[in-house]
Every structure is written in structure tokens, then in C-alpha cells.
């Protein structure tokens, strides 16, 4: 074996050891330590014929803006813990690059939040992580508490291939705790549009009082209806949110009606051409928004209330 071969073998063994340490860290000391180990794993994923530009960098909430500018606020709103970033450049043509960013969001719910908020509809889906898709030669993947972005300088098949290999390697070494995202199972599955599910930690629907909110689009006949579900700290807090919603509807819409259908009490908001219908169920606030047909809005809101899958 040549000295270069021996060196490569030592490096591989070191990487394997670090991988084991990273995995162990997840089990014993929490996710942050695992995330700190990522630079080594990332370096080991360098595509063949490419090299790392500068070095693998890590960013915390305190300095994330240095890398992604104003977009940092978006990730901080979802309680990002650490971001690992590397730029790979082609060894022969250094203006060609592939950027890899791995966001450790602390929990699968937060990771799903940023993934779902950035998700494009109609892109090619990937069988990687819990969910993922490709747009041109860019890859976006959610796995457990991680959100992975791979951005390529060009859209060629070659970049697609290299990007996909990289995506596979990264999703292989990132761990997934398996913890479920509550909202994904709480809202009914029937008629739900694939990939329409989103999670907003703050400012859902442009409303500063709507926090921890899931939204999903449902096909009802020929109409698409957006349903939402927000988990509050307590029933009291949910009641307060209902009052705030009614105030918002009165200010920006044409008024509200209070309805009762069996057990369900609804607030129907005429927003001037579209309708929102809101209900409370314990510490949950749910409903539908931006529906053009008032009776459909009422009907779907009641259906959502009845079919909520709560355990």
C-alpha cells in the first residue's frame, strides 16, 4: 500500500470513529454535541474531484446572519440551534460551486417548520430523509431535527448527479430520533393535498397572535380549502386567541357571526369576498381561511372539528 493509501485509510478510520462518537453523543448528551461533530462528517462527503473552499463553518443563533443575512430571522423564529455550512468547488473550475447547509433545528417539528415553509410545490420528490425534493440541481431535505439545503451553481445533469450523491451521503450520516410532528397526525388525512402541510411557529396567516399553527390544503369538490390548527398553552389562552381573531375580523372584514352546530361553536368571519370560520376545542384553535363560499367554509370547519385526530 502506498503512503497516500495508508493516509486515506487512517482518515477513513478517523471519520468512522468520529461518526460513532457523533451517534453516541446523540444518545447520551443531546443533539447539540452531535451537531458540533458535523464538520468532520461533512468534510468526508466532499464530492470526488471537488474540494472544500475555505473550511467547513458552523453558525449559532448569534452569528447566523453572517452567513445568510436577513434570512437568519426566519430560522431563529423556529429556534435554530446550529447551522453547518460548506462550499464545495470544482478542483478544475473554482467558479463552479455547490453549497451545503445543514440546519440543526433542535426538534423534528421545528425542522419540519422551516422545510415546509420553504417547500416548493410540484418539484421532484426524493426518497431521502422524512421528506425532500429537488428543484433543478438544488436539493431540500427534512430528516428528523435537520433541514438540509444543497444549492448548486448550475442546473446541468452533472450538477444534479453530484448534488444527489451529496444529499444521499448527508442524509445517511444524520440521525433521526423518530419523534413525531404532532400536527401532521392531528389534522384529518382525507382530501388533504400532498405536500400542502406547513407549520408556523409565529405569525401564521399574518396574525401576530397565531402561534404554533399548522395549515393544510384540502380538496373539497372543485374547491381548495385551507384549514388551520393552532395549539395554545391552555384553554384560557385559546379563548383569548378566539377573541383576538374576532377583533381582527371586525377590523379588516365586514363582521362576524356566531354559529352553533351540534356541539361545535363557530365564529364565522366575513372578510369581504372570502370567509374564515374559527372554532375552539380545548386548548386548540382551528378553522378554515380564505374560502370564497360561506356555506362551504362553515361545512368544512365543522368537518375538521369532528375529524380532528387527538390522542
Amino acid at each position, binding site marked *: 500500500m502506498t503512503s497516500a493509501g495508508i493516509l486515506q485509510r487512517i482518515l477513513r478510520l478517523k471519520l468512522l470513529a468520529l461518526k460513532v462518537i457523533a451517534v453516541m453523543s446523540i444518545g447520551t448528551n443531546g443533539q447539540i454535541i452531535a451537531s458540533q461533530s458535523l464538520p468532520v462528517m461533512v468534510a468526508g462527503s466532499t464530492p470526488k474531484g471537488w474540494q472544500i*473552499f475555505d473550511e467547513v463553518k458552523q453558525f449559532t443563533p448569534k452569528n447566523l446572519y*453572517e452567513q445568510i*443575512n*436577513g434570512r437568519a430571522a426566519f430560522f431563529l423564529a423556529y429556534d435554530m440551534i446550529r447551522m453547518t455550512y460548506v462550499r464545495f468547488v470544482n478542483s478544475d473550475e473554482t467558479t463552479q460551486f455547490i453549497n451545503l447547509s445543514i440546519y440543526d433545528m433542535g426538534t423534528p417539528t421545528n425542522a419540519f417548520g422551516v422545510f415546509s415553509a420553504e417547500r416548493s410545490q410540484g418539484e421532484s420528490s426524493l426518497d431521502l430523509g422524512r421528506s425532500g425534493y429537488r428543484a433543478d440541481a438544488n436539493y431540500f431535505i427534512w430528516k428528523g431535527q435537520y433541514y438540509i439545503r444543497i444549492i448548486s451553481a448550475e442546473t446541468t445533469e452533472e450538477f444534479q448527479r453530484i448534488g444527489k450523491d451529496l444529499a444521499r451521503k448527508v442524509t445517511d450520516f444524520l440521525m433521526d430520533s423518530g419523534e413525531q410532528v404532532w400536527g401532521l397526525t392531528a389534522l384529518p388525512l382525507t382530501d388533504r393535498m400532498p405536500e400542502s402541510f406547513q407549520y408556523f411557529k409565529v405569525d401564521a396567516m399574518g*396574525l401576530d397572535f397565531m402561534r404554533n399553527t399548522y395549515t393544510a390544503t384540502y380538496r373539497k369538490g372543485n374547491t381548495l380549502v385551507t384549514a388551520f390548527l393552532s395549539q395554545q398553552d391552555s384553554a384560557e389562552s385559546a379563548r383569548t386567541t378566539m377573541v383576538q381573531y374576532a377583533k381582527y375580523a371586525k377590523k*379588516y372584514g365586514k363582521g362576524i357571526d356566531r354559529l352553533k352546530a351540534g356541539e361545535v361553536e363557530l365564529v364565522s368571519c366575513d372578510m369581504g369576498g372570502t370567509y374564515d370560520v374559527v372554532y375552539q376545542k380545548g386548548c386548540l384553535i382551528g378553522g378554515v381561511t380564505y374560502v370564497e363560499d360561506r356555506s362551504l367554509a362553515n361545512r368544512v370547519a365543522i368537518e375538521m372539528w369532528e375529524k380532528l385526530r387527538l390522542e
Partner: protein
Amino acid sequence: MMKKNNNRDSFDRREFFKIVASAAISGPIFLSTAYSKTTESTQPKEPIHRNEQPTMTYRKLGRTGFLSSRLVFGCGAALTGRGAMRLLQRAFEAGINHFDVGSDIYYKGSERNLAPFLKNHRDQVWVVSKAPAIVYTKSGDSITLEQAKSAAKYWTGLMDASLKDLQTEYVDAYYLMAVENPSLVRSEEVYNAFLKAKTAGKVGHFGLSTHKNAQKVLETAIETGWYDLAMIGVTPAGWYDWSTKSLAQDTSTLIELQGLLKRATEAGIGLIGMKTVRYLAPFWSLGKGDPSAFDKLYGEKLKSSSFSPFQRGYAYVLQHGIDVVNADMQNFKHLEENIIATATADRYFS
């Protein structure tokens, strides 16, 4: 796909084709030089009016002639992952006629989420998008020709993607985003890429956004004579620097920057303020969490107003050389506060 806009800022195509014909012989450097000398003027054009309402105030943006609402709706963050149609509609009803968004590569999904609003209002609003022309150098280093070519190619590719996502054939302006390197600002390769896009009817005006090394970037933009719009990271206390998330080191105050801002205005550059009050914001919003940081700069009238610290910041810069301010607004509460601040700013200055 939207039809090309009839009321776009006029550009003399016959004159341009003459220049392009010359450039075909003389090469790309001549293109920018000839264009600059022949058709650009720092004199304001006839005003372009769009969606003006009594609840908002307006300011002409440099030589574009566009009468922009003094509050610019910053769509990038607000529309990432959400439609926010009602928020946009409320902004429109309040007289906001200037919507600033950014490339999908940066503000993912925001352009696609703005598209339905534009479908209803494209001719009534001014739409700007932006993308980085990525080069990896230090601020002081000059970029190489190869880097400039690569940056221009990347930038125009993102511009095409922006148009597709916005479902329009034309944006009123497209910016070089987050520029910090003066040599990129004066890159003929990038400028010629813009001119080609303009000739193709894709874009009306050339601009840049900067929040690092902003003074040098703006000075360079003035020197070139190419830029119609500059979106600058600026606060009442002076330049804002994203690399430190703080005020730029040794920055002059906004009052002391008046000479430079005046030169930019005289060069026909419309000035859009951004990151104006970010310094005051809480940590999770990338601020320093010090709402009173600019108070020492304010007069009694502004200080004793019912404005919040954020509203005061906007009002102050609008009265000191900044034409309009771009604000990132993700909920109705912030939108309403900013409308009041920008529309009534002049009441607090004698």
C-alpha cells in the same frame, strides 16, 4: 404569464438598437459606455403614478420618475412559505405601491407567493426583485474578469428564474443583492448583463442593495452612473453593517452623511433605506434589543410623539435624505404601525 406592461418606464428602443448595433461591432465594453453617455440622464423623468392613496405619502425615486410610496413592502421574509394575500391587499389599499422581493435562492418561495397578488395588480404597483451576483473575494479585492463573467451569468440566470416565479415578463427593477465589493459594482460584465436583460424587455432599472461596506459601494455606484436605485442599510445613527449586526465601525451619523446622500440623489439614484430599525429589534429578530439607541439623535417633537422606537427610526430617516424605506412586515400589527410612521413622518419635524 402577464403581458408586458404598457405603462412601464419608457426606454427609447430605437436609440438602444443603434447602440446595440454599434456594440455588436465594438464589443461589450462599448455597450455600457455608449449607453451611459447616450441615454442616461440624471434628470427626473415625467412622474410615474401607481396606486396613490390619500392614506400614504409618496416620493419620486431618482431618475426612474416613479412616485413610490414612502413605505416599501419588503416581501422577501414575509412571503417565504406563506401567501399573505390579505396582508398584501391591506398594504395595497393603504396606498403602498412598491413591492420588493428577492430571488428564490435566498427568499425561498417568496416570488411565487407574490405572483397571485401581482396577477390582480401588476399594472398598479412597482415590483423589484434582486439576486446576488456571487463572487468570493474580500471587500477590498478586485474581482477577476473570470469571476465577473461567472457572477453575471449566475445573476442573470436568477433574474430569469425570478420572472418565471413572479409569473411576469417584466420587473420594474432588478438589484445586485447584498453587494459589498466596489469592483463588482463597477463590473462591466454585470452591467452589460443587465443591459441585455433590459433590451429583452425583462427589466426597467438597475439597482443594488448593500449593507456592508455601504459607503464605498454607494460612492462607486454614483461614479459609474449606471445605477437608478440603491437600497442601503442605514439608520438614524449611520450605516448599518450586517457583518457585525451593528452600526458600522466609525460610521458618520445620518446627518453627517447628507452630503453623500445628496450626491447620490443628484446622480439620479433613488435611495431606499433598509435595516433602518433592525438595531433596535430584539435578539431573535437580529437586533441588539436596545429600543432607545437612537433617542439622543431625535428632536423633542419626535421624542414626545406617540410613535414607538421603530416608528421614530423610520420617520427620522425619511426626513433626512432617504427617499423611501423598505420594511419587512410579517403581520398586520407591524404593517399598520409602519404605515402610520411613514405616512405621517413629516409632522414631527419643523
